[in-house]
C-alpha cells in the first residue's frame, strides 16, 4: 500500500482529488443558496495560493500558517461578492445570466488583483511569484510529503463538521430550510440574508483552504483558477450540484479520472494524450448531462438496481 503511494502519480491523484472535493463542496454550498453558478470560485482558491506564498517566503514560516488566514480572507472576498454585487442584483430582479456575468466580471477583477500582487511580490522581494511551487517548505511524515496526509484528513474533518452543522445545529437546520424554501423560512423568522451570507463565506473560505493546500504540491500561478474552473464545475455537476455528498463523490471521481485516467490512456495510446487532460472534465460534463442531468445524487438507485435484477 505504502509502496503504491510512492509512485508520485498516486500522490498527485490523492491531493488533487482532495482539493477538488473542497472546491466543489464550496461551490455547491454557494449554488444551493443563491442558485447562481459562481465563475469566480476558483480564483478564491488562487488567493489561498498567494497567501501560502507570502506566509512561507516573506514571513518565512510554514505554508500551513496560511490555511486559517486563507479561510478568513477568501471567505470575506466571497461574502463581498455576495453582499455588494449579487444581493443588489437579485433585489433588482436581474436574470440568472446577468448574475453569472457579474461573477465573471468579479473573477476578472480578482485575476487582475492577483497578477498585480504577483508583480509586486517579485519587484519588492525578488521572489518568483509565477509558476512557483512551495514543495520544499512542506514537511515529511513517514518519508512522504506531509500534504499527502494533511489534505485528505483535513477534508474528512471539514466535510464531517459541515455535515454535523447542517444536520444537528439550529443554524444548520435554518440553512437547510432556507435552501428548501426561502420565502417560507423568512415567514417563520429565519434571517434568510444572514444564512445566505454565511454560506457564501463558508464556500469562499473552503476554496481558500484548498488554495493554501494546493500550493504545497502543484504549481501556483495567478491564472490557476481559470485553468481549474472546468474541473470544479465538472465535479459539482457530476455530483448533482444540490448536495454536499454529491460534491464529495464528484470531486473524487473527477480528480482520480483526470490524473489516473490520463496516465492509463497515455499508457495505452501514447504520451501525446497527456496534453489533452483538460478535456476529461468536459467529457464528464457532457456525459452527465446526457445520461443523468441531475447528477449522481439525482439517480434513482433503487430503479437502477431493479433494472439489473440485483435487488437486496
Amino acid at each position: 500500500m505504502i509502496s503504491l503511494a510512492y509512485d508520485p502519480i498516486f500522490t498527485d491523484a490523492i491531493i488533487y482529488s482532495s482539493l477538488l472535493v473542497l472546491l466543489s463542496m464550496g461551490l455547491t454550498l454557494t449554488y444551493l443558496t443563491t442558485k447562481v453558478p459562481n465563475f469566480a470560485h476558483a480564483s478564491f482558491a488562487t488567493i489561498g495560493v498567494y497567501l501560502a506564498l507570502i506566509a512561507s517566503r516573506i514571513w518565512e514560516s510554514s505554508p500551513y500558517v496560511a490555511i486559517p488566514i486563507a479561510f478568513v480572507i477568501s471567505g470575506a472576498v466571497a461574502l463581498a461578492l455576495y453582499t455588494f454585487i449579487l444581493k443588489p442584483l437579485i433585489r433588482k430582479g436581474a436574470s440568472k445570466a446577468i448574475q453569472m456575468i457579474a461573477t465573471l466580471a468579479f473573477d476578472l477583477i480578482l485575476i487582475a488583483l492577483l497578477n498585480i500582487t504577483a508583480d509586486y511580490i517579485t519587484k519588492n522581494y525578488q521572489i518568483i511569484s509565477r509558476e512557483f511551487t512551495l514543495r520544499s517548505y512542506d514537511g515529511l511524515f513517514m518519508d512522504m510529503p506531509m500534504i499527502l496526509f494533511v489534505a485528505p484528513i483535513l477534508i474528512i474533518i471539514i466535510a464531517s463538521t459541515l455535515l454535523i452543522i447542517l444536520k444537528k445545529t439550529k443554524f444548520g437546520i435554518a440553512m437547510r430550510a432556507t435552501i428548501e424554501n426561502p420565502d417560507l423560512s423568512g415567514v417563520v423568522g429565519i434571517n434568510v440574508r444572514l444564512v445566505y451570507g454565511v454560506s457564501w463565506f463558508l464556500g469562499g473560505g473552503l476554496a481558500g483552504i484548498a488554495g493554501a493546500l494546493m500550493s504545497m504540491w502543484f504549481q501556483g500561478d495567478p491564472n490557476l483558477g481559470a485553468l481549474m474552473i472546468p474541473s470544479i464545475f465538472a465535479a459539482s455537476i457530476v455530483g448533482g450540484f444540490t448536495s454536499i455528498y454529491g460534491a464529495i463523490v464528484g470531486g473524487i471521481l473527477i480528480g482520480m479520472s483526470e490524473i489516473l485516467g490520463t496516465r492509463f490512456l497515455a499508457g495505452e495510446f501514447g504520451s501525446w494524450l497527456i496534453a489533452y487532460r483538460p478535456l476529461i472534465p468536459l467529457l464528464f460534463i457532457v456525459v452527465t448531462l446526457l445520461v443523468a442531468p441531475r447528477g449522481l445524487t439525482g439517480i434513482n438507485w433503487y430503479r437502477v438496481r431493479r433494472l439489473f435484477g440485483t435487488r437486496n
Partner: protein
Amino acid sequence: MALGTEIIFIVDLLAIYAIYLIINSSLNLEFGYTGIPNFGKVLAVGVGAFVAASIPGRILANMAGIEGDYIGDNISIITQVNVWLVDNTGIGFAVFFLTLGIAAGVGAGLGLLTAYPAIRLRGDYLAITLLALGEGVRIVGNNFTPLAGGTLGVQVPDPLSWLPGELRFPVATIGLIIIAAIVLLYTERTVRSPLGRTLRAIRDNEVAAESIGKDVTRIRIKTIMIAAAIAAIGGALYAFYVGGTIAIAYDRTSWTFWPFMMILIGGLANNKGVLVGTLLFVTLRKFIIFFKDSLQPYVPFDVVWLDFLLLGVILIAVLLYRPQGIFTEKPTKTISKEGFTDKQKG
C-alpha cells in the same frame, strides 16, 4: 504614399470594430433576443480562426504546386503562396470566400454539438456547459498541431497580397466593414421577421411560447447554429486580417467576456446598442493600449492588469446602475395601420 500614425490607428480601430460587430451581433441574437447565455462564444470564433489557419493555405499551396510540410515550413510556404496570389487574385478571392463558407458550416455544426447536451436544461447548466466546452477549443488548438500549428501558430494566406503595402490594411478594413454591414442587415431583418418575435417570446416566457405551438428546443438550437456560423465567419475574418492564427489568442476574456460586455453596455436586443456599445468599448481599449507605455513607469506592476481591473469595475457598475445599457429595447417596428389596410384593399 506613407500613412500617418493617426490613419493607421483609425484603420486598425475600424477593422477591430467591424470584426467585433460581427461577433457581437451574433451574440445579441443568442443572448439579447433569445436569452441563451452563450458563455462559450470563444468556441465558434476560435473554430472560424482554425478553419482559416488550416484550409486556405493548404488549398493554395496545392494549387500553386508548392511542396513542403504545411506546419513545419509554414512561413516559407505562406510567403510563396502570397507571391503566387499576386498573379492569381481571382483564385485568392474564391478561396477566401470558400473559407468563410467552410468556417460558417463547421461553426454551425460545432454549435449544434456543444449546445445539444444542455439545450433542454435550465439556463445556468447551459451556460456552464458552453463555458467549459469553450475552454476546450484552446486546448485542442494548442496541442493538435495540424490545425493551427499548436503553440507556435501558423500564418494565413493574404488574398490582398497584390496590393501595395500601405494600401493593404485600409482596403482590408473597408472589406470588413462591408461584411459587418451585411451581417447587421441580416440580423436586423431576422429579428424583425416573425422568427424574431418568436425568439423574444421564447426569451420572455418559454412555457407560453410552447403552449402556442412553438418548438422551443428546435428554435433555440437553430439560433445557436446561426449565431455560431456568424461568429465563426468573424473568427476567420480576424485570422485573415491579422494574417495568422495562434491558439493561445482565443481565450475566454477576449472572445466571450468582451463581447458580452460590449452588448451589455450598448443595451441588449437592439442593433443600435451593438453599434454604439462596440464602438465605445473598442475605442476605450484602443486608447488604453495606446497610452499603456506612458503609464508603465509610474506603477510597480504590468499596466495590462489595470486595464482588466478598470473594465471589470465598469461592467459591474453598468449591471448595477444601468442594467438596460445605453439603448433600451423597444417594441419591434411593424407595418403601420395605414400600410396594413392599404395592403388588404390592394
